[in-house]
């Protein structure tokens, strides 16, 4: 039983970081609808920006800020310089997907170029473990979970109570109708990418701390787990992403108690494939309506 609770504790931390990484992806996909293969790179960029600041003596909060800013900047630029120009030509979705792959290649290797391939790590004060009821968590763990909850609430507030958030939901429902209502859909999309990268960059910093070492493939290695959580919760549903992250995070850590922990990710991938086959719209949606392939308008 103790083991199980330990697993739950780890699961919550993993879920927290995963949620911070997944919710922005879901937000972006709900508004801009681009399956972004470079999403992992937003995390990596954040992690390395934090490293830079850390090297020059920055504390946790400064690093976090740097990570968020770097992630946001890269995301914004990728959309403004690469995706939106191509999007004007109305290409197939697959072409945009391929472009994000190219972006991922470029960003990842630029990082490799500037920082080298050696594993780096942060120089942050040690974190003391605390016993919270039956769970054993460090202060850093608690901070991670706490910040994740705070940011989830912030996203919720954004979507539900701000004019911009409502505009995001409107664009998500129908880009055309939003324009007709007077909303500048392209502007909303640009800002959404900024928010996406900002939160993801911060998640990258936390991921870097949690995995102990940084490498240029930090984000990409995590990408499929992020997609698993996003798809489980329903692509384009930020709230679903929170739930998806919780499920995948817990599943990964608890499964590690029963099978070798190196198969953790396989559990996530397996859930991903299962979801895509059985409930491609996420576990909260109805199964795909039956109908022959290729029905015309």
């Amino acid at each position, binding site marked *: 039983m103790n083991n199980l609770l330990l697993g739950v504790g780890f699961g919550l931390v993993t879920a927290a970081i995963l949620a911070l990484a997944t919710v922005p992806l879901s937000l972006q996909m709900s508004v801009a609808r681009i399956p972004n293969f470079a999403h992992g790179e937003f995390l990596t960029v954040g992690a390395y920006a934090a490293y830079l600041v850390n090297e020059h003596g920055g504390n946790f909060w400064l690093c976090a800020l740097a990570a968020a800013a770097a992630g946001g900047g890269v995301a914004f630029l990728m959309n403004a310089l690469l995706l939106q120009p191509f999007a004007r030509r109305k290409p197939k979705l697959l072409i945009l997907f391929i472009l994000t792959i190219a972006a991922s290649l470029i960003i990842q*290797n630029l990082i490799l170029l500037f920082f080298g391939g050696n594993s780096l790590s942060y120089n942050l004060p040690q974190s003391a473990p605390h016993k919270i009821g039956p769970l054993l968590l460090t202060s850093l763990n608690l901070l991670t979970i706490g910040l994740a909850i705070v940011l989830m609430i912030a996203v919720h507030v954004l979507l539900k109570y701000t004019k911009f958030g409502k505009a995001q939901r409107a664009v998500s429902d129908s880009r055309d109708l939003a324009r007709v209502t007077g909303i500048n859909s392209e502007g909303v999309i640009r800002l959404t990418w900024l928010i996406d990268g900002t939160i993801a960059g911060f998640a990258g910093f936390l991921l870097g701390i949690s995995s102990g070492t940084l490498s240029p493939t930090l984000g990409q290695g995590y990408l499929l787990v992020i997609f698993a959580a996003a798809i489980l919760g329903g692509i384009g549903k930020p709230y679903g992403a929170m739930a998806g992250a919780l499920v995948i995070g817990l599943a990964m850590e608890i499964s590690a108690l029963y099978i070798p922990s190196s*198969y953790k990710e396989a559990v996530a991938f397996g859930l991903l494939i299962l979801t895509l086959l059985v409930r491609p719209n996420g576990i909260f949606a109805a199964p795909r309506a039956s*109908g022959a*392939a*290729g029905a015309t308008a």
Partner: protein
Amino acid sequence: MNQYLVGLATTGVIFAIIALALNVRWGWAGEFDIALFAFVAIGAYVYSVITLPPSNLPPPGGYILGLRWPFLIGVIAAVIIAGLLSAIAGAVALRKLRDDYFGITTLAIALILALVIGQYTPLFDGYEGLYGMPQPLSSVGALGPDGGNYLIICIIALIVTYLVLERLVKSPFGRTVRSVREDDTASAAFGRNVYQVKLKAYILGGCVAGLGGALLAAYITAFNPYGWTPTETFLIYAAIFIGGTGNSLGVIIGAFFVEVGIQEVTRYIPQIGSNASSGDAIRLVVIGLLIVAILWFRPQGILPERRARDRLAVAGSGAGLLTVPGWAARFTPPRFRQAPRWAEPASAAAAAQFTAEPAEVPAQAMALTFRSPLLVSVSGEAGPAGAVGAVADDPVSLRVSNVVRAFGGVRAVDGASFEVRRGSLTGLIGPNGAGKSTMINLISGFDAPDSGVIEFDGKRIDGKPAHAVARLGLMRSFQTPREWGGLTVMDNMLLSAPVEGRDAVWRGLLTARRLKAAENADRVRARELLDAVGLLRLKDEPAGNLSGGQKRLLEFARLAAASPRLVLLDEPQAGVNPVLRERMSDLILAMVEADITVLMVEHNLPFLERLCGHIIVMALGQTIASGSMAELRANRDVVDAYLGQEHVADV
């Protein structure tokens, strides 16, 4: 010879083979597969454990098999196993997934595979990997990767692969695969089981990838999971994009460019600081930028996909009939054993007629052209596979009974019933929202009714998938013409001819010459039909370049080529200029003359009126009236349905 250059060339050749594998999946079939390199790895591993001696590694290391069998068997095993695993992976990933989800699923499969192989060490020695593969063919002679001899083996493999794939891409199979990439809805409407076609392409790609993997393992004599990541697959995509998607030669060029060219160029960039990987990093950044540049400036790549040339085989060459030899007959399904009647070679005279400039075809002759060699008059010989004379007695060709189809809460079709008489030209009209388009989808198998029965020639077809309905002889057109844009007009015509098992892979591979002769009849007929619609001079143009009106005409020609028994026309003259409209009326009449039943949805009522004797009216999902146009015009309900009611009694 310079050992370094030999090594470079060998890597390039192997890379080219792997690129050809991806070209089958992506270039031919349009499948965005990220798992390709996993199948290369499978090939490498299988080759290794077949050629290595039994494992004597201390646990937990070790590997399975270890048969110490020769090079060739290792390669063949690699191809087969990679193909088998592709079948499994493809069956999972191809289940109606959107393009990007398909890619993600293949990525997930590849990563799971990598994880399992890395972790489960008894399988392939985990992350340590395998090494020490014996030099290929060393028992035969003094061969080895150090000399140029292994390079020669690889070049031979590349040439063989290239020739096989070229043969396949030009065969009916290759044409079918490419059609699915262009427009899979149209492919289904013309009788193709899209899922099966895509799966076959996926497996074929896997086999070639396995070959590449085996050659790779034999060359490096070592293989471990670190050498295969998604990045490797993206490099191959870069090769294909740059060289030319779909063009085998272009792909080979692209492979050399990316693997050898860029590798070499970036070798001369000095190492930056203490970063040992700076060369690699720069190389990949350059490749990433190249992908973006190519997609922006020249998405088709250096060598665009080649257009098939339309050539008639010399009449009477070889055996035109696809009869299966006796010993194989036992294993062949019945419908393949007999050569279909269309396989008879054209006479030399008929063939000669079309090498010259086409003359004006008189209008009456058009009907004769449309008359399918498969259809028979009501006196009833055997028609297309399965149909027998009894059917010809039933005057009703299509019967719709109480069909209901609802979307969400809205009943698009709400208990509609009607009959279409054989050989008739019947119209289906109704105001917007009447449910006509839904009805067409339900009849043609693109949608299934919630309840009710649809019968075609006495057989129930409701719920059958589109390709099955098409194979029964019920074809349809679409509101906007759906042609296979990247293929030539002639290819479009050939694809439309009845399927009858011609596009099997083995036929494309083994009986290419016979197929060409058999296709002669189709080509001749296609030319006649194209001539009848006035498109003969465009037969070698990519169909996507045609104007809207020309695409419509092509659609007619394709429908006629399919030798249908019933054709559903969905607003055939929408967006067509008045001159063309005349032509279209003639074509539709010619179809009916040729004993094809036609059911036509139209909004242009004067157009419809001239052609249709019998017209069915739908409104709000139900059939409200039927009869001649004059009768309908006098029918108050019909007029109200169109113009609306002025004053509504408040309910």
